[in-house]
């Protein structure tokens, strides 16, 4: 690009990702700022709706911008991204009051087949793992695969959690998992390589509704433990914001 970024403009790098997408990576040393930048840029692109831009997928420090190469081009989309960054510099990153979701979880046993494995690997007791997992609210950082999974910064475990050597072919909807430094709930049945430590009886994904999942990136989510006998009492209930 020929434009010179001003010091206040969020630093980003733009990478080619084929003829129909660009990857934008926020590259400041501040992780929180990077996350805010890519989500604000995604929101700006959605609102501005440049011709041929099909959508933007923001995650942690990166944004995938998808476009129709029959209508626009990587070069034009790159220019839109720069324009968006200048706008954000001018208006600042918009703040939004987060909503909070409370998620009941049955830990261990058939509901969380990897709980003991995780405890062993962390040199903790099963109870301590549950305590750490329920100890705080997590920021939903982005929506991931499969189907709008709430990707969260994980619990304060001593070590990163390794993925399963043999991913499961099928993990049930509502599975509560951890991997690396991340935590997630599976909205739908899907294969998975993360450690499943519990399951929520709440319905997360509703294909009859729009939006399909009730949360957006930036919302907060907190887990609390319920006994296995209560699992059935939640049947048919949907995940809803507490406030």
């Amino acid at each position: 690009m020929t434009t010179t970024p001003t010091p206040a403009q969020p630093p980003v790098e733009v990478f080619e990702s084929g003829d129909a997408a660009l990857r934008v990576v926020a590259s400041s040393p501040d992780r929180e700022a990077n996350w805010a930048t890519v989500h604000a840029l995604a929101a700006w692109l959605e609102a501005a709706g440049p011709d041929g831009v099909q959508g933007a997928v923001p995650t942690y420090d990166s944004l995938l911008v998808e476009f129709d190469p029959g209508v626009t081009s990587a070069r034009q989309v790159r220019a839109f991204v720069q324009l968006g960054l200048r706008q954000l510099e001018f208006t600042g990153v918009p703040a939004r009051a987060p909503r909070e979701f409370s998620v009941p979880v049955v830990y261990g046993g058939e509901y969380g087949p990897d709980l003991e494995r995780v405890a062993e690997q962390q040199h903790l007791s099963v109870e301590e793992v549950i305590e750490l997992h329920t100890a705080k609210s997590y920021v939903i950082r982005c929506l991931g695969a499969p189907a709008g999974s709430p990707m969260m910064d994980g619990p304060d475990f001593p070590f990163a959690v390794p993925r399963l050597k043999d991913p499961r072919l099928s993990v049930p909807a509502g599975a509560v998992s951890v991997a690396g430094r991340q935590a997630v709930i599976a909205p739908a049945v899907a294969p998975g390589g993360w450690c499943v430590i519990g399951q929520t009886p709440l319905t997360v994904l509703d294909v009859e509704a729009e939006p399909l999942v009730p949360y957006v990136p930036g919302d907060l989510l907190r887990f609390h433990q319920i006994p296995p006998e209560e699992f059935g009492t939640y049947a048919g209930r949907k995940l809803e914001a507490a406030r």
Partner: protein
Amino acid sequence: MSGSLIIQQPGHSVVTDLGRFRGPRFGLPVNGALDQFSARAANILAANDDNAPLLEVTALDFRMHATADVLIAVTGAPLQLTVGGRECQQWEPVSVKAGETVALRGINGGLRAYIAVHGSVEAPVLLGSCAPDTVVGFGLRLTEGSELKTFKSVQPIRQPYFDLPLFRLGLTRPEYSSTAVVDVTDGPDVDEFGDTADLLYGTEYIVSGRSNHIGLRLGGALPERQSTAEVLSRGVPVGAIEVPSREELLVLHRGRGVTAGYPVLAVVTSRSLDVLAQARPGHKITFRKTTVPEATAKHRAALRELETLRSTVGTVFSLLGIGNEPGWHRLAPAAGS
């Protein structure tokens, strides 16, 4: 007049369109017709919008019968097409009389065929698209006895002389081969693979039977990632080539999970994704490096070819009095008139 199509032999068939473009921002894959060129061509030949719901038939034989007179077009992989027992041409509009059976048999050379019906068929919609999503369990997967509502009837059009094919619209059909060349551009993480990245261009890969609409798995010499740092999940484009295991190369297609934590070695061009959509297990694939501007130019050339087809179909159908719905290209007035 509306009627319906009754599925007699579903094989492996769904109702789809060009994809759920609003899906990825919510974590849903784009999905939609894997061979976009063939799907667009079928709809154009049936005088529909490019994005109208149509049938995608994968690998297996398929039969349906029509309860009203309809006009259809079948594109995609080579096959034997019969209507009411008569042999008919693919890549041309075909008239089907009420009660006649449409049969697609012996799909060969490629993997997927498309059936568009003039006026399209009824299908449920999620986020603006009828494309099936296997993860959330949405969409129309056809079974024996499935009934698809059609919206428009077209009087039978028959060539009066010797039943010769009615239309010769002159579209260059894609070539299907068991040894395909696939164009790719460097991926955003190509540097992570060091010198081993070049293996991608010097290797003949074999399509594994475990391939599907989510991704193709290819056996052959594998580039290796040089670093082991954990990658934060990020959006990956359709066409991304990853090396998630030591066994196979993974080429993501339209059913891909939107985010992943594997480095992207290369990305298949939009045009070549259509080629991969037709690759059968056992077929051989070689990759050729290209640039984004070249890939864009090829994609646009294909779209221009489809526009030419649209204008030819428009002329022919206007003369036959078919398809004068809004948005349809009418004949331009003759110069000087």
